[in-house]
């Protein structure tokens, strides 16, 4: 186990544009704490995000960061992981980015199972575009694009992740950064795709799902005799919402190969090391035998 790092190594001078009180601050803190505890330095991690308030996170810490386009961080992250499996790849994006425009990548990545940690800043709203309903907004939620209330049943990230085949499914709360940091650590340590959906108050555009609203409803699975290895139990807990909202690890199944483990082409090298070596010594002769197939 690597030695704990000083949180300061992730600090960054960039001016943070989040609203005072935004839940994203706690998520940033929790991510830094988790990486520090795990001894993963800024150059050993790659944080990939999309577009949205939450997706600005990589701009606010010192770490390799790729802020991509709306809804696409998962495939970008998967590509980076397959090109260099040594990297600790973490995806951070909003609920609209993950479950709205990015919904297909979410379910496909879950069953694909690359060793990536996916942290979703779930504020049940579109923040950066100033307050439209998101996939996780509850039915009846009033926003500028649903002035008479949304008429869609909310997207349930826990249920969808389980159905799609995710091996690690957890929910955290931005009001409990320490607990969240622990979840992130477990997610990073899980071998395979890990989802951590974070209840993240948007103090500016979501006046319903506030810190208080969440505090009044959440309970910790750790506090109960709950077996995260039991899929049926997870399926039932995953449906809990409203009066009681579980946080913690809902489901965990270890011992499965990650996608990259089964990619034959990654034996004995990876695309990044191979081109690095070829740029030094091209070895043209190695391709000659391929001509046979055409002769």
């Amino acid at each position, binding site marked *: 186990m690597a030695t704990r790092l000083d949180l300061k190594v992730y600090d960054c001078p960039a001016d943070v544009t989040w609203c005072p009180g935004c839940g994203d601050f706690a998520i940033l803190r929790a991510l830094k704490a988790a990486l520090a505890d795990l001894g993963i330095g800024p150059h050993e991690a790659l944080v990939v995000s999309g577009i949205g308030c939450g997706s600005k996170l990589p701009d606010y810490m010192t770490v390799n960061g790729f802020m991509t386009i709306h809804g696409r961080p998962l495939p970008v992250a998967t590509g980076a992981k397959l090109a260099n499996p040594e990297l600790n790849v973490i995806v951070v994006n909003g609920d609209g980015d993950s479950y709205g425009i990015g919904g297909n990548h979410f379910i496909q990545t879950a069953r694909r199972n690359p060793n990536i940690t996916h942290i979703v800043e779930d504020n049940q709203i579109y923040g950066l575009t100033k307050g439209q309903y998101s996939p996780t907004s509850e039915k009846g939620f009033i926003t500028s694009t649903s002035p008479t209330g949304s008429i869609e049943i909310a997207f349930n990230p826990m249920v969808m992740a389980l159905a799609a085949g995710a091996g690690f499914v957890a929910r955290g709360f931005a009001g409990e950064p320490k607990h969240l940091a622990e979840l992130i650590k477990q997610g990073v340590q899980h071998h395979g795709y890990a989802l951590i959906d974070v209840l993240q108050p948007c103090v500016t555009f979501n006046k319903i799902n506030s810190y208080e609203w969440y505090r009044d409803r959440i309970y910790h699975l750790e506090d109960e005799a709950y077996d995260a290895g039991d899929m049926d139990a997870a399926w039932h807990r995953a449906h809990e919402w409203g009066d009681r909202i579980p946080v913690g690890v809902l489901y965990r199944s270890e011992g499965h190969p990650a996608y990259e483990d089964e990619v034959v082409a990654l034996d004995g090298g990876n695309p990044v090391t191979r081109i690095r070596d070829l740029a030094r010594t091209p070895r*043209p002769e190695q391709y000659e035998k391929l001509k046979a197939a055409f002769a």
Partner: protein
Amino acid sequence: MVARLMNEMSILIGGSAGQGVESGGAGVAQAFARAGLHVFAMQDFRSRIRGGHNFFQMRLSESPVYSHRDPVHLVVALTPESVALHMDHIAEGGAVIFADSFKIDEEPLRARGISVDALPLTKIAEQYGDRVMTNTAALGATAGITGFPVEYLEGVIRENFAVKGQKVVDANLKVVRDAYDAARERYGDSFPFRLAAVEGAPQRLLMNGNEALALGALAGGCRFISAYPMTPATSVIEWLAKAPAEYGVVTKHTEDEIAAVCMALGASFAGARAMTATSGGGFSLMVEAMGLSGITEVPIVMVDAQRGGPSTGMPTHTEQSDLLFVVHASQGEFPRVILAPGTVEQCFEAGWRAFNLADQYQCPVVILTDTLLASSLQSVDARDIDFNSVIIDRGKTLDADVAPEEYKRFAYSEDGVSPRAFPGNPQAIITTASDEHDESGHISEASDVRIPMMQKRMRKLETARNEMRLPEVYGPEDAEITLISWGSTHGTVRHAVDILNGSGESARMLHFVDLWPLPEQELRQILGSCRRTVVVEQNCTSQLGMLLRMTTGFEANVTLTKYDGRPFGPDDIAAAVRREVGVGNKA
């Protein structure tokens, strides 16, 4: 009495999807190439898996061939349609061989001096087990009538059917031999168009544009391709997927084209040479991510194997109608490079050269091919697939002794190119955003950051412009007529030039492979010095013509377009040029 012609003919094998026209045609083409003949084999397929009418048309010669050409001298028909649809393009003295399983109206053909015979192809196939071997019988008959040594065919059959076991191999060998004998028996040496092995010919490889491009990419160090199947681009990833594991090519068939291009960008960001390949419809879905590559300066090679549009259009037919689209694709403004190889050899070169350009200019590089180039089989002198000619230039990258706080991923520079570094490098932290950003990569909307950063990126285009190649000239400097073309029409236009010059006209070809950025000053010169100009394009609106006018103000005298999905033939072009330029003169 028709003059006998040795090693100079066209053969057409026609049938319905599922009858093995494609595999059979490829097999016999391979045999001809092994015998030292130059081969150009074009396929014409419908967007269906069974039935319909498909054909495989081969041109064979002792001298180089660059395109298909009518008339055909031998039609081997597995369905009545195969005869009906092609009868007008059969040369006098030619022959139609058809399977005994159906009847056709033979008289009109005979009247034109074409010999017509039903051979027991299906019967022979069934005799040795299964009528699916009818196509094998057709190959045997082809060798028989043209006097081509059947041994070459037998060799190909042994290899191609090996995977299916010895029984299948033996059955096919018997079929090919019997059909060969049946044709010899019927024709002896009477057929005027003959084929024979070429003594002392160099080794010839038979490959299509996709295979050559993939091979070039592999040799150029590409070890990552993510793509989503789309005709006619699919065989690029399919070929790389079956490349031996030792090369370590990670191939990913994704959920869609958006994921495909994004995975490739992620791999490239991590430091790999990564590509994706699709056709126009898939490219449309990649447009947003192309802009991500543009602003984040993450290199990527994107293949757009064009097909008949718009939308789903004519999925199995050829067209050159995505040029202006890829030149302007994605919102906002950023540098890009566009290459349109015209031959299999040029596909091989584009395959590795594109990665050098992408790394040097840290931008998207699009390779434009099309159905004709991607799927036509062409014989290539094995020496022209020269792995020693392959250069790997990764462009500016961080030299290890820069301390982290000094490293600036997007440092302003004279040529607009800033040194890349890759995540994992303890010397550098790489922050990259699709928002406008400062030299360190952090988001900024300030005017005094935006302006120099935009200028930095756009300077790369000027730097690249100086490196782009001028159009290839073929034919006399002072030609009366200049045919201007791009991409897959290379061989056909070149052949048309020969035909024109052979018939007393004075023509030359100006062929573009490098299409963006264009060296505008030199081009104005070159185009200005042309006498009469004809732009030849496989599309409806003459897109190269528009591109040249947009960049140089040049206006061609005549534009020749074709948009029915069937490739130009060299004689069509020659005829049209005579006609049009004639008209042009009078005007």
